């Protein structure tokens, strides 16, 4: 038990250091951006009609006069105290905005994550099991096709088919246009999330299925499966007793590793479907030079990704006897 705690502590420490690095990298990138916050957010024409004092006030607001190092340290100082500042674009606390947006995105991402994980695993396992036969070829063909398709293109295609031609699903946003918050039903929200979630799942499936297929083939070609067959174990016993057990570890790695891809995909999918989620907020923060919001989103998404890897590491310890027993002996 002490060993596990030590292990978890070390991982957490590493995670904090990585978060620090990620926030710094995001800051530096934004700093190096050629976009001028005043030009993009206020506009050339409006700026032209302003007095010098007004412009100076605005420059101070967008942080143009503060040296970068000081700006980052200021942000870091308050972030460590839990205060991520106010968004420059929305003029509201960053955490509040992230909270709202995450609420919209999270279940989009979670449903896509689960769907692509389960479907990807099943398809990959089936393809590996029927290696070289028609189910394998079909699944592999589908995966190769999908993984060579850009997410935005797929999103537009789905939008075209289901929202424009068939007209059975809404074309964008997360709630009906013009409806007031009280009258929005759960069914409305669901209907609006289907297409973005579908886009994310469909692209996620391909990657997971192809990797799972490789793992399945590795397992089936392994010496221990050969010996299990030599002992007379049936096909179902090989699949259920040896196959699933040995696929569990790589599947967990894949599944939790895919969090980053889902988040990355959601940025694009939300943009296409005008879905007001975290991904869309990230795009507006980036284009609008909203440093506090962008850093906040970066830290939160990075924490989600690291958190996923952390959970995967902990699950290893539960599943893999080599880790579990060694820990118990200590």
């Amino acid at each position, binding site marked *: 038990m002490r060993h596990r705690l030590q292990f978890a502590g070390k991982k957490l420490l590493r995670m904090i250091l990585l978060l620090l690095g990620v926030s710094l990298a995001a800051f530096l990138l934004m700093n190096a951006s050629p976009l001028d916050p005043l030009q993009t957010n206020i506009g050339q024409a409006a700026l032209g009609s302003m007095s010098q004092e007004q412009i100076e006030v605005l420059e101070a607001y967008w942080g143009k006069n503060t040296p970068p190092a000081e700006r980052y340290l200021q942000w870091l100082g308050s972030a460590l105290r839990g205060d991520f500042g106010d968004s420059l674009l929305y003029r509201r606390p960053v955490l509040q905005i992230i909270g709202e947006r995450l609420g919209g995105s999270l279940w989009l991402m979670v449903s896509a994550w689960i769907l692509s994980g389960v479907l990807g695993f099943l398809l990959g396992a089936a393809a590996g099991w029927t290696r070289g036969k028609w189910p394998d070829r079909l699944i592999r063909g589908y995966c190769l096709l999908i993984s060579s398709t850009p997410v935005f293109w797929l999103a537009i295609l789905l939008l075209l088919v289901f929202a424009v031609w068939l007209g059975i699903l809404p074309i964008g946003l997360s709630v009906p246009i013009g409806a007031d918050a009280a009258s929005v039903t759960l069914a409305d929200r669901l209907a609006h999330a289907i297409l973005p979630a579908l886009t994310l799942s469909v692209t996620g499936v391909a990657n997971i299925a192809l990797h799972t297929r490789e793992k399945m083939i590795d397992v089936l070609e392994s*010496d221990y499966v050969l010996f299990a*067959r*030599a*002992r007379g174990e049936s096909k179902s016993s090989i699949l259920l007793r040896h196959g699933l057990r*040995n696929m569990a570890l790589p599947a967990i790695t894949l599944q939790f590793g895919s969090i980053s891809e889902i988040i990355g995909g959601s940025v694009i999918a939300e943009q296409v479907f005008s879905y007001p989620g975290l991904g869309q907020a990230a795009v507006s923060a980036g284009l609008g030079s909203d440093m506090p919001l962008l850093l906040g989103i970066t830290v939160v998404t990075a924490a989600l990704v690291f958190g996923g890897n952390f959970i995967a590491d902990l699950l290893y310890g539960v599943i893999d006897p*080599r880790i579990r027993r060694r820990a118990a002996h200590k």
Partner: protein
Amino acid sequence: MNPILEVRHLSISFLQYESGFRRRMLTVIRDLSLTVLPGEIVAVVGSSGSGKSLLAHGILGLLPYNASMQGSILYDGTPLDPARAARLRGKEISLVPQGVNYLDPLMTVGAQLRKGERGAEIKKRCREVLARYGLKEETQSLYPFELSGGMARRVLISSAVLQSPRLILADEPTPGLDAQSAGRILGHFREMAKGGAGVLFITHDLDLALTVSNRVVVLYAGETVEEASASDFASGKLRHPYTQALWKALPCGEFTAVSGAQPYPGEIEQGCLFAPRCPHCRAQCTSGEIPYHPAGNGWVRCLLSPQEEE
């Protein structure tokens, strides 16, 4: 007596992709024939890479995905097709695999021995078999990584004899064991042979093969070069220069090794595979097929042997 196992002109090849899309068949076992009678231990001797493990896997119908097999295998007088092999595996025919990696790393020894069966009966049998090889009851709850090399070896053998098979394919069952454990295992094989089972004892150790087996089949680069009875060795009746060289290399012989190395699969396309290393090589040895033919009470693949010279 009818043989329990008869392998006739067995060839095993791999389909390999070379640079780009060019494919080629790599033949690793060619024209291999042998028989095992009930009650007999037949040793298959050959150096590393000569195809011993593949032979065992081929008999069981467990070749890799990209392998293909020609020739015929008869078990108990009837062809052993894949479906029949699948029915007999683990029941009448059992395998002692070559290494520890043949155990599932994520499953306890007991669970692997029981093969998913439940009940007091199988538990009792597992306990008995393990005890026979000096393994305690607790071994069952260990994972493969917790076993020592010798323990793992004994677990592999236990698993093979759990079902009282009629044919045992033992692939290098004894390395890594102390003399006493090895002796106990070989003794046990002999016991099972006495009970009517056939044992195919695969090893690279000729010395060991001669101590337990009735007959020895010598493999060289995937071909059977000689089949001799164990007594032929000491009495100097060996037929093939390679077997003679192996015999001479033993401590009890002159202890001289033949120079050079066994060719890789596909390296020599025709003629005798041993020709480059053979002290008696002649012009006709390097072309055409060298037939495997009876000689005395054994078999040989060599143009020098008396049968051919007549």
